[in-house]
């Protein structure tokens, strides 16, 4: 799939927001793909982390909005410990999640979770899930 590079669809505000929230220099990414090769979730992603970094460098807001990557990321930090450029990619994913959540859009609805499921789930699952998926 070609990426359409144009200053007209490059969103500088998005880039600076992600930089501000993540504290990470995603421009340093040189596209080696170690993150995608390490990610345990790739079979459930529609866009791999390497490409997410490229889209971010280009400020391609529309393409990024289509990525399920931040929502499938489990913050396991394998990509981060292996990144040769020292980029904390889970922080970049967190920033992409936060941009959405801070618009008061929940990714999951706590009230919709089956009561029986809640009784079974350990507290750390609920607390961490709500931290990652609700505003």
């Amino acid at each position, binding site marked *: 799939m070609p990426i359409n590079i144009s200053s007209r669809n490059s969103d500088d505000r998005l880039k600076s927001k992600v930089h*501000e*929230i*993540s*504290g990470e220099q995603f421009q340093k990414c040189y596209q080696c793909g170690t993150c995608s090769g390490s990610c*345990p*979730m790739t*079979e*459930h992603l529609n866009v791999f982390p390497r490409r997410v970094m490229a889209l971010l460098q280009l400020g391609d807001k529309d393409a990024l909005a289509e990525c399920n990557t931040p*929502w*499938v990321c*489990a*913050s*396991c*930090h*394998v990509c*981060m*410990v*292996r990144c040769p450029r020292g980029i*904390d990619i*889970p*922080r970049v*994913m*967190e*920033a992409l999640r*936060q941009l959405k959540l801070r618009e008061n859009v929940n*990714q*999951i609805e706590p009230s919709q*979770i089956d009561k029986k499921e809640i009784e*079974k*789930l*350990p*507290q*750390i*699952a*609920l*607390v*961490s*899930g*709500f*931290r*990652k*998926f609700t505003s």
Partner: protein
Amino acid sequence: MKISYYPGCTLKTKAKNLEVSALACLDALGIEYEELPRWNCCGAVYSLADDDLIHMIAPVRDLIRVREQGHDTVLTLCSMCYNTLARANELMKNDEEKRNTINMFMDEEPDYAGEVRVVHFLDYLRDDYGWDKVKEKVTVPLAGMKTAPYYGCTLLRPGDVAIDPPDHPTVFQECMETLGAEVVNFPMSTQCCGTYQVLGNPDAALKISYDILRDATGRGAEALVLTCPLCDYNLGRRQDEMMTRYDFSTEVPLFYFTQLMALALGVPAEKCHFELNREISEGFLKAKNLLVKASA
């Protein structure tokens, strides 16, 4: 010297088998500890947003409680609590600007600058207590048991709080070998179980948990050994779902490492609460003649 003990929410409710067996181990090893008074939830995950300091308050408060208790070390059992407390501690130690903001915000608390040491039971045993001393206390070696120690993520990543090298850890294997168990190494022992994706993308979490179990058993493991209640949920409680979804017919018994350690240290099986594990787990130990010996 006495150390503080931080239990965390899950150990008081859904993972009592982890807490009760661990405390029995501490007693059997002669390690003096004191549970933190007024501890609160650590927040389960460390905040990854640079502008979000409010979620640092909970873990930092816990660390301040440790200092108030007069101890310099806090022991954790749950991997997620370990990670969250250890990372918050590193932040307070190394980031002056954020430390000042947090301290100023918590004006009712004394200032904190990362003076406490956060340890997990595994690295505490290795670094402070010593495997040799543990070995001396083993009365029921776990002979004939092929165990696969599963690390998961939060004990090993990120690097600044890793209890062992993230890509080549050995501490868990050393622990199981000390207890007399046979260790099965498997590549997926450090791969994520899906953690909180059990809420967001339950199918994805189920699939990678299934892959982990298949990898371990494919290399001859008879049981998985864990440190984290969320790994136990994904890899253990969800095995019924795996059976209906995948080519997965043989249940895999799972244990917290503290349960097996307690058995090896001669703690009565009742104190290990195997009835809270998957049903197959207790039967597995009976078949290995480990329960009988421990109760005798």
